[in-house]
């Protein structure tokens, strides 16, 4: 009897008191469709953003995550995976959301600061402890008998940055030409032990399954593997590499449908805040904010970085020349 009275009292409380409060404080869910290595970043960031958003508006935000190779993820959104925000490895993949499915405006990249890229990264080498094969420069990688673990440029964004870093440095080297670069990249993929479909798959192949002598990929991924792999690996930073810019966007069509445009935009904007940039640095990405970057300066090696616009004339052109069907990658890899 006592218990049922209590239940009734509780029910009265819930219906009488809590209901109006929940009516005011909304619960919002966002879906962030992201590329492979950002799992840890967004676990930290989502918690921070929820806290910030609740303090600011009283609403609770739950951010659901989907991760995979960047190209594959773009394809899923195009096929109807209803992402509120897309945070992918490279601009070309987000361009496809506009081009293939008209989900976002063509000029999406102008909507947020720094070309909508809240952080940058680059491509480095991860080798086994003590660097037994002495792999220090790009030229060392293409010696016979070296097993390289890149990912598949057809599906992985990081792998495309890797390809472009390898090609671009050969092009920029003294006496470099397209022919020389093609020759280099042919040798590079001849040494490839496996081509995983995503960056994280490549990392587990190298770290867990012990395949290959060197993992060539994201800086953030290499440092994370270093942290997880307790003293079994070393990061080698090549003298020259590419400035990788992974952009973010609200997927307007789906966000509008869900009524989440405002939250989604705030979610991406907060990436540029001091707290957001701090979390970015903590996860080994390179923050845009100069003060935060300076604070964490010691964790980023000095690399001579070139951009895709300077060397390849932008993503659309690079994609068409190198990664489309019958492009340079197909020509050299099928050989």
């Amino acid at each position, binding site marked *: 009897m006592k218990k049922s009275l209590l239940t009734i009292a509780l029910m009265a409380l819930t219906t009488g008191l809590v209901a109006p409060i929940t009516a005011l404080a909304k619960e919002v869910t966002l879906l962030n469709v992201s590329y492979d290595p950002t799992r840890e970043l967004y676990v930290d960031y989502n918690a921070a953003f929820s806290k910030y958003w609740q303090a600011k508006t009283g609403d609770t935000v739950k951010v659901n995550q989907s991760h995979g190779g960047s190209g594959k993820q773009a394809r*899923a959104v195009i096929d109807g995976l209803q992402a509120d925000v897309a945070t992918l490895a490279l601009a070309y993949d987000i361009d496809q959301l506009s081009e293939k499915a008209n989900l976002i405006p063509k000029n999406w990249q102008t909507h947020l600061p720094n070309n909508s890229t809240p952080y940058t990264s680059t491509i480095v080498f991860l080798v086994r402890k003590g660097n037994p094969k002495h792999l220090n420069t790009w030229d060392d990688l293409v010696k016979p008998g070296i097993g390289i673990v890149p990912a598949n440029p057809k599906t992985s964004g990081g792998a495309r940055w890797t390809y472009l870093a390898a090609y671009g440095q050969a092009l920029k080297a003294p006496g470099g030409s397209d022919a020389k670069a093609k020759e280099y990249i042919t040798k590079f993929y001849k040494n490839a032990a496996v081509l995983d479909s995503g960056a994280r798959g490549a990392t587990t192949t190298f770290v867990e399954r012990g395949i290959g002598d060197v993992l060539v990929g994201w800086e953030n991924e290499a440092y994370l593997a270093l942290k997880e792999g307790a003293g079994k690996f070393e990061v080698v930073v090549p003298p020259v590499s590419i400035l990788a810019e992974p952009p973010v966007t609200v997927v307007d069509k789906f966000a509008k*449908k869900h009524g989440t445009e405002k939250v989604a935009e705030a979610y991406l904007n907060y990436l540029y805040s001091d707290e957001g940039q701090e979390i970015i640095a903590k996860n080994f990405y390179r923050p845009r904010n100069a003060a935060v970057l300076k604070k964490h300066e010691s964790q980023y090696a000095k690399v001579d970085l070139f951009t895709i616009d300077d060397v390849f004339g932008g993503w659309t052109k690079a994609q068409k020349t190198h990664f489309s069907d019958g492009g340079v990658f197909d020509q050299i890899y099928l050989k």
Partner: protein
Amino acid sequence: MSISPSITTAIPSSQYSNYQAKVARSRATSEPFLIRWLLIATVLGFLSLFLIVPLAAVFTEALRKGFAVYLAAITEPDALSSIKLTFIAALIAVPLNLVFGIAAAWAIAKFDFRGKSILITLIDLPFAVSPVIAGLIYVLIFGLQGWFGSTLLDNDIKVIFAIPGIVLASVFVTFPFVARELIPLMQAQGKDEEEAGLVLGATGWQILWRITLPNVKWGLLYGVILTNARAMGEFGAVSVVSGHIRGLTNTLPLHVEILYNEYNYAAAFAVASLLALLALLTLVLKSFVEWKAARDARLNELA
């Protein structure tokens, strides 16, 4: 799961029931000691290398960081939601395939009609098609760029990258199991008993419930067990239509992959061990069903 390792073993027909008595150990059926020993050693070696060692590895890896970590991994909200989703998919796929499997097997085994061989081929199609293609079929039909994509979006119906897509993919890949199990059994039994029932004035439903189904009950159960195991373990087709949203559209096998990719090996193997336990349970049930079927057949013969 293996596809159909023993379609015939579940057949409770009389030729198997006193098999042992007929081929008791005699000189004609037994090899010299050395050869027998070698064969047994080979089989045991093969079994332990390909089955027992990996199975043991799953459980040792799962328990490497202690039982508390193991328990935490399988009771974590994302893991629980993947368990729930896996059960939902199986709970829908199994009854659907049970009904359609019986209907198809009944039509094929008891009647002659034009296009019968085409129907049999269609039933086998999910075995012939790679699961990835099975998933892509649904993306092509229900995806935003597919046939019904924009209509579905306008009406706010989610098929792929949501639970319906996962259920559809599971139903597709498990479609043949029940029918494949029943067809040879029903064909072997013939239709004499049904015809007798008909002559004695039974209605169609009476014939189904009192003659056809009781005759195939063990084969049917065996098909259901296989269907269930495959529905819960399917990776490829489900992976294509899942969208991989943590805690929402991940089934158990997909959750294992996610955990593994997040350097969370103990948790990945803990969840994998659930799938391994499911497989073991399937094996026990399967043996039980086979034993029951054989016993029934023996009893029938005595009666």
